């Protein structure tokens, strides 16, 4: 899967088009993310950001073009998306296949060391977000795909989680793609920013 020309964790996107029925959502999109870099994609609601991310994540194969991405991908969604019937620790190990020790270590990193036996509904929203970050990093991912991961948080919590996310990204050297409609979030992660616009949508570099 990985391409040596782009390094181990690089992402190579060459989409020629993506449509839902008669609607062309994505046009021609070319984007290369070098190994270990963080890229942010901004754009208005309904433009196709999530669609693009689903393609990169390998969840949607029904498009024209070619996408090369590493094998080990971790998602972070707008909602924590934890399984309510599993404890915090099981949410890491059962879903990702990570070992207990590794899971305990990552939970410590995100400040949840004494919450292993808690169920998600026993955690605050901020703690749930940190648990979902822990899940993303416990599997030692090569690529992190984040779809509006800070959207449902108030400003202070968002700042805290963004700082934690940035630290985890830098420590792990993971390649990351962030989808957001807030430029401040892109800046907080030190991301190179691209803008998605038009119908069908195309990608432009920098701030528009």
């Amino acid at each position, binding site marked *: 899967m990985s391409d040596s020309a782009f390094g181990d964790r690089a992402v190579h996107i060459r989409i020629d088009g993506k449509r839902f029925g008669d609607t062309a959502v994505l046009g021609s999109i070319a984007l290369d993310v070098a190994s270990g870099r963080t890229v942010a994609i901004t754009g208005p609601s309904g433009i196709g950001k999530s669609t693009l991310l689903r393609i990169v994540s390998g969840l949607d194969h029904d498009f024209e073009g070619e996408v090369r991405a590493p094998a080990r991908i971790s998602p972070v*969604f707008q909602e924590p998306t934890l399984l309510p019937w*599993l404890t915090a620790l099981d949410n890491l190990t059962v879903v990702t*296949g990570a070992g207990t020790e590794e899971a305990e270590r990552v939970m410590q990193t995100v400040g949840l060391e004494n919450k292993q036996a808690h*169920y998600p509904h026993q955690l605050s929203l901020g703690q749930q977000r940190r648990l979902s970050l822990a899940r993303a990093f416990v599997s030692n991912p090569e690529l992190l795909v984040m779809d509006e991961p800070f959207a449902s948080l108030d400003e202070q919590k968002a700042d805290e989680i963004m700082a934690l996310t940035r630290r985890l990204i830098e420590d792990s050297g993971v390649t990351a793609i962030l989808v957001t409609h807030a430029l401040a979030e892109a800046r907080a992660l030190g991301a190179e920013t691209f803008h998605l616009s038009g119908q069908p949508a195309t990608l432009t570099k920098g701030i528009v």
Partner: protein
Amino acid sequence: MSVSATDRLRRSSLYFVSLLGLIATWQIAATVAGDPALLPAPLPVLTAMGGELIRGELLHHVGITLMRVLAAFVLAMSIGITVGVLMGRDRTVDGLLDPVLIVLLNLPALVVIVLAYLWIGLTEAAAIAAVTINKVPLVTVMLREGARALDPQFDALASIYRMSRWKRLRHILLPQLAPYIAAAARSGIALIWKIVLVVELLGRSNGVGFKIHLYFQLFDVKMVLVYAISFVLVMLCVEAFVMRPVETAANRWRSA
């Protein structure tokens, strides 16, 4: 904790008051009627029940009926869950099977039973099949609803992490469907045991339905009540000691 404990005590005492009221009403009605052949009082019925129990008749027939209920229940739940989930997740399957489902839902139980006996013969297989076919559509409808309510984000999570089929089933699909399965099981067991009695009445030579039919022909109200009440008691026990504990275990995480 103490609140829920007193609450439970309150509920169970209300339960007993209600039960006692029912028996008292029965006793009064029997006294007013004044004809034991028409409506025997609770005590003679209980005595007759003891007699049947000692002769071994009661357990034999109740046991046979219970086995039929169990077989039809397991079959109807397995088929209904599978088909319901397929219909809820796949529009083509849904469109294909929806008319069949509507026809089956509106088919009177009696018609299914009679046709099963006519086409398959007066056999055990026909009896079980008739009950199962009566129940499958309801389970299917409930599980289709459950499958439509499945969270697509969990599917995305499972796909990205390449979770195995078994893990998906056990940790993602079944826990989400559990409330729907529980509701289907609850309404299912109630419907099934009632239909089993009709099936036995129409084409079996053993079981509670057969015995009730027999005593009906002899105009023996007391023995009809003995078998009817015995089976209601058995089904209440199934509800209390099987269905409810399973449900409680499945819901443990909610109250953690």
